């Protein structure tokens, strides 16, 4: 595939202007943002506004992604994916045609980088945000599919985890369109690739596992045991261990179920910091004891002064 990608890559350099064949809109390429499974994404200038432009040699894949973005746009009151701005074709100076679409440019930081700087207490927050978004998505009949660290960005004020690539989004009941091995339950031998809410919940756990194992790890001869052990090895993940195990083995039917259990774990975690302070209050006997000893010692000392 990389071979074919070269064809449009060779045309698109910073400063190149791209004019749509159908809607005549002009986009100036600023720089490349990355390579997706089916094409490349560029940062571009669209009439003074920054936007992300995805272009591919496979016209049908672009069309399929556009269909998904359109349906996600219909999920009311939520901005689940980036919003779609334009769909068009570009005819190169050499006469080749490439399909592209333009979407909202989401600017943010990668999840592992953010957590490194801001601390692991964000795990719970992000997990709840993801579960809430997934719940809306599932309720509108879709499954995210290719949920992974690379497809998420943390945007600022307010801090929020956003989805940037919805290429794998699949209608519930069908076969997952796009996936990444490490996040895929089929690869771990823990389920099918049928699009159902539990498929996303598996990947969600793997997102947080990936944050702590950026280089991932081999599945070994018993994938489930490997996975459980790796989770147990990370202190920051241990509180969620039970929920994670349930999600990995497909015990949750809906995101909401998992969200409620995660919420109660977080609730317990927040109460925990108070337990050490409680223990301080439990300490008084010890303090009184030492004060008592001190008084006795002082008494002896004073009496020793009086004796001569």
């Amino acid at each position, binding site marked *: 595939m990389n071979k074919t990608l070269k064809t449009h890559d060779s045309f698109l350099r910073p400063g190149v202007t791209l004019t749509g064949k159908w809607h005549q809109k002009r986009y100036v390429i600023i720089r490349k943002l990355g390579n997706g499974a089916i094409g490349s994404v560029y940062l571009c200038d669209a009439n003074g506004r920054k936007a992300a432009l995805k272009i591919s040699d496979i016209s049908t894949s672009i069309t399929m992604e556009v*269909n998904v973005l359109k349906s996600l746009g219909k999920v009311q009151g939520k901005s689940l994916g980036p919003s779609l701005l334009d769909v068009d074709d570009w005819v190169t100076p050499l006469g080749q045609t490439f399909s592209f679409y333009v979407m909202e440019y989401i600017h943010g930081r990668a999840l592992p980088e953010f957590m490194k700087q801001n601390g692991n207490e964000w795990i719970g927050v992000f997990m709840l945000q993801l579960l809430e978004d997934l719940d809306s998505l599932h309720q509108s009949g879709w499954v995210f599919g290719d949920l992974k660290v690379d497809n998420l960005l943390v945007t600022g004020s307010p801090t929020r985890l956003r989805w940037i690539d919805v290429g794998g989004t699949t209608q519930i009941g069908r076969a997952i369109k796009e996936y990444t091995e490490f996040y895929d339950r089929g690869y771990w031998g823990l389920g099918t690739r049928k*699009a159902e809410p539990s498929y996303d919940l598996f990947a969600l756990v793997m997102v947080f596992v990936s944050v702590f194992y950026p280089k991932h790890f081999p599945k070994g001869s018993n994938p489930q045991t490997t996975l459980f052990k790796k989770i147990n090895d990370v202190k920051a993940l241990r509180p969620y261990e039970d929920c994670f195990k349930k999600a990995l083995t497909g015990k949750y039917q809906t995101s909401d179920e998992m969200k409620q259990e995660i919420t109660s774990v977080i609730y317990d975690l927040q109460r925990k910091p108070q337990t050490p302070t409680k223990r301080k209050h439990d300490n008084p006997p010890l303090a009184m004891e030492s004060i008592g000893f001190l008084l006795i010692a002082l008494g002896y000392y004073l009496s020793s002064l009086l004796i001569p």
Partner: protein
Amino acid sequence: MKKGTLKQILLITDGCSNKGEDPAATAALAHQQGITVNVIGILEDDQTEEPEGLQEVEEIALSGGGVSQLVYKQALSQTVQMVTKQGMTQTLQGLVNLELKQILGKEQTMEDLDPEKRGEIMEVVEDLGETSDLEVLVLIDTSASMHDKLPTVKEALIDLSISLNSRVGRNRFAIYNFPGKRKDIDKVLDWSPRLDTMSSVFPKLTSGGITPTGPAIREAMYQFGKKSLLRSFRNNHEQDIENA
């Protein structure tokens, strides 16, 4: 509505066919019979550029109406399923394009429609891809140079079966290897809905010296014929019984 069955040959090779007719020619023949030929070329770990032996990979797929891809064996699983699905989409799109030409005139294909309409048609193509039945004949090159890649091939095929069996439509797989002991191809696994059963049969593969890719594709083509003949005979038979 009765949906048709998509027929595919998935050729997994490291190139260098060296016996019999040109594989591109037999692939073209298969394509004419309504069978799509997808090809995956496996690179050696130390190969960086396209080696000459693998040039035929793209040609075979082109004349076979399918998709081709060169990969290192580590990426095989994902490539196998991507190539199979893209091959399906391409075939279905070809069929839709034919219909479009009949409706809209000779010069019209999907690319000539505006993105809006294309989107609607693509939804139909996707629907068909999800629901139509699929027959994949996997043709594995087991010449000597492929030997160390076979365990990965096996894993990738089991993985493919997981992916395809998550679809709504039904699947049937068969596996053949070439060169065969006495014939051009040997049967490894007869038509079956899953590939999990393969684990027991796969070790049968033995690596030999010659690579008759062309004749292998031709033989593979006939395996579809045999089966559909048998099936239509069965169907007729059942009908006869019902009639009686």
